[in-house]
C-alpha cells in the first residue's frame, strides 16, 4: 500500500468530486516527466507530444471511471498508462516521412535562407535510441525517471526479479554500444 501522499489525495478528490483544480495540479505536476519519458522512448518530438496528450486523456477518463484505486502510487499508475500508449504507438504502421534535414537537403540549392538545424544529440542519446524497445524502456524508467525496480516492474508488468535482470542486460547493451563506438572512457 503506497503512502497516502498528495498525488493520491488529489486523484481521489478528482474521482469523487470532479474538482478540475485537482486534475490541473496533477497534470502540471507530471506532464513534464511523462513527456520526457515518451521523448526518450519514442525518440521524436511529434510522437512524444501525441503520446503525452493521449496519456493524459486516458488518465482523465480512467479517473472519472473510478479505475484508480490507490493500489499503486499515482505516478507509477500514470507511467503504466503512458508506457501502454507509447508501446501502441510504436506498433502503429507508419507512413514514410521526410525529416527536416531531408527537406533541407532538397531545398538547400534553391533556398539559401533555409538552413535546417536538427536538435543536437549526444552520443549517449543516440546509443540509447538505438537500443531495443525493452532495453530503452527499462533504462528510461529506472535511470532517467528514477523509478525503483519494484515500481518499474509494476509499470512494465514483469516480476521485480525479471525487471532487475532486464535492467542489467539493458545497461550492458548500452555499454557495449558505447564501447564499440569508442564513446565511453575505459
Amino acid at each position, binding site marked *: 500500500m503506497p503512502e497516502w501522499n498528495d498525488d493520491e489525495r488529489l486523484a481521489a478528490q478528482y474521482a469523487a468530486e*470532479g474538482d*478540475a483544480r485537482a*486534475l*490541473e495540479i496533477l*497534470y*502540471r505536476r507530471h*506532464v*513534464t516527466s511523462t*513527456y*520526457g519519458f515518451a*521523448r*526518450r522512448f519514442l525518440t521524436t518530438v511529434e510522437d*512524444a*507530444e501525441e503520446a*503525452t*496528450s493521449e496519456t*493524459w*486523456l486516458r488518465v*482523465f*477518463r480512467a479517473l*472519472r471511471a473510478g479505475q484508480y484505486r490507490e493500489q499503486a502510487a499515482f505516478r507509477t499508475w500514470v507511467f503504466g498508462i503512458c508506457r501502454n500508449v507509447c508501446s501502441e504507438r510504436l506498433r502503429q504502421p507508419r507512413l514514410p516521412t521526410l525529416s527536416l534535414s531531408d527537406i533541407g537537403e532538397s531545398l538547400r540549392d534553391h533556398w539559401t535562407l533555409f538552413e535546417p538545424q536538427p536538435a543536437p544529440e*549526444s552520443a*549517449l*542519446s543516440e546509443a*540509447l535510441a538505438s537500443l531495443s524497445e525493452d532495453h530503452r524502456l527499462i*533504462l528510461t524508467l529506472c*535511470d*532517467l525517471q528514477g523509478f525503483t525496480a519494484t515500481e518499474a516492474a509494476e509499470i512494465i508488468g514483469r516480476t521485480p*526479479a525479471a525487471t*532487475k*535482470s532486464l*535492467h*542489467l542486460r539493458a*545497461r*550492458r547493451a*548500452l*555499454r557495449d554500444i*558505447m*564501447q564499440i563506438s569508442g564513446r*565511453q*572512457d*575505459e
Partner: protein
Amino acid sequence: MNQNELQELIGLWVDGTLPEALRDLVEAEMAKWPDLAEDAAALRQTARELRTLPAEHPDSWFVEKTLTRLLREHDAAEAGIKAA
C-alpha cells in the same frame, strides 16, 4: 553466494545502493575476478553517464494546449452529469 545472487548485488553496487557490509562482500568477490570487476566498473560508468542526460521538456504551448483539451473534456463530462 551463487551467480544469480552475485549478479543482483552487482546491480545494486552499480547503483551505489548496497549496504556497506554487502558492498565489501561484492568488492571482495570482484577482486578475485578482474573481468567481473571491469564489467561492473563499466556498467557503473554507463549508469552515471545516463543520469547526466538532460531532461527533455515539452514546449509550453503544447502543455497549455493539452491542458485546455483536458479541461474541455472535463467540462463536457460535468455538463453531461448535470443534464442527467
